[in-house]
């Protein structure tokens, strides 16, 4: 059991390592991902201008920026393998579960990297007040986990479609709606300075969403991955 788990981690780690090496040589996803996020942020900042926003608006804007830039950035992981024809080489080398885990980790790190840039920028431009910074970090982390878990399998579905263009946001939005509503609510609570105890139901929903979506994805990924 333990050795099997270790070998899984090593194999998924190899995939993650490969993706990062390739990503940092080509900047295939990261550049457009980051620019998309910055552009959305600047539009929000221009539109809001000198007005004062209440925490609900801030929370909504933060998650709108995260959602749309994630849709632009995370679709690439599988589409790239499909377009470059490397899918077969990968498919013949390892199990679907390892592919899912490897790609999930890659997408998650990519998203967190973008968040690391975009959230400070958001504070720089729009300066919302934060009542409970730690809660904000936890909500952002849990939200990113659920977002990535869902987007990873959906982007694998999209990579098989003939028309790949705008399919991912269309497919992802209804599925991610519970996550988005809860994340926005959780972010609002964090901005308003509520405690962890008061936000516990949001945190529970976010973590169970992540666990359920990842489990279901692992179970179903086999059907998506085979040709």
């Amino acid at each position, binding site marked *: 059991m333990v050795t099997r788990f270790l070998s899984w981690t090593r194999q998924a780690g190899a995939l993650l390592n490969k993706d990062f090496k390739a990503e940092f040589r080509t900047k295939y996803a990261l550049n457009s991902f980051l620019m998309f996020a910055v552009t959305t942020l600047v539009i929000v900042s221009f539109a809001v201008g000198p007005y004062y926003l209440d925490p609900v608006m801030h929370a909504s804007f933060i998650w709108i920026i995260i959602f749309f830039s994630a849709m632009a950035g995370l679709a690439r992981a599988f589409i790239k393998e499909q377009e470059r024809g490397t899918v077969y080489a990968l498919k013949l080398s390892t199990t679907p579960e390892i592919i899912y885990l490897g790609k999930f980790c890659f997408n998650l790190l990519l998203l967190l990297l973008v968040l690391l840039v975009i959230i400070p920028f958001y504070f720089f431009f729009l300066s919302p007040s934060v009542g409970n910074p730690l809660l904000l970090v936890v909500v952002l982390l849990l939200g990113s986990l659920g977002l990535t878990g*869902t987007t990873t*399998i*959906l982007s694998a*579905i999209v990579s*098989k*479609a*003939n*028309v790949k263009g705008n*399919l991912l946001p*269309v*497919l992802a*939005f*209804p*599925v*991610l*709606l*519970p*996550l988005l*509503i*809860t994340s926005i*609510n959780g972010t609002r609570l964090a901005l308003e300075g509520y405690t962890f105890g008061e936000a516990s*139901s949001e945190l529970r*929903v976010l973590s169970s*969403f992540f666990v*359920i*979506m990842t489990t*279901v*994805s692992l179970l*179903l990924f086999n*059907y*998506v991955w085979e*040709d």
Partner: protein
Amino acid sequence: MFWKVFLGIWMSLVIIASFLYAPPALGLGEVSRIIYYHVPLAWVAVLAYMVSMINAIKYLRTSSIEYDYRTSFNAEVGTIFALLATVTGAIFANATWGTYWNWDPRQTSIFVLLLIYGSYFALRSAIDDREQKARLSSVYAIIAFITVPFLVFIIPRIYASLHPDPIVNIEGRLQMDARMLQVFISSLAGFTGIYFWIYNLQNRIINLKGKIKGRL
């Protein structure tokens, strides 16, 4: 043939009874008669979506294509009924609350269901290969359907409901007049009957299609 005639007579009686036999609900007035249509429509939409989901799972387990026909067909039926339920609901809402739409939990849930199946059809039309279309769209239907219970839990925490629970609630006792209840139950049964009649027709079409293909 028998069922067609029987359902026709049954539904005619339900329609007449809903206007003439049942009394209007207290406090809601004549417009409350729409519940004899609105609630059964919503019920059939959910039923069709459930059957669609079950067929999606069956398809993935057996990969025999007729389950996929059933999945997509039930999704279509469910969408039509959900649209009708949304429209009747909006009319009812406008008459009682003064607005067609207010993100009431049930409105939100049915809206998300419509979105899910809208995306489901968008996905189907984006894939050419018959098997891949069936497999990927079944996976999507399952993933999407799993998130619906989350909504049921989350939305009421954020938006308060205006739905007329006192008349139609599930846990508590039914506060309906006996005659209202009779018409209501008959209408539910009638609409369910219509659904199964459509389901049966479609199954026959699927089987015939299979036979024609087999002969060619």
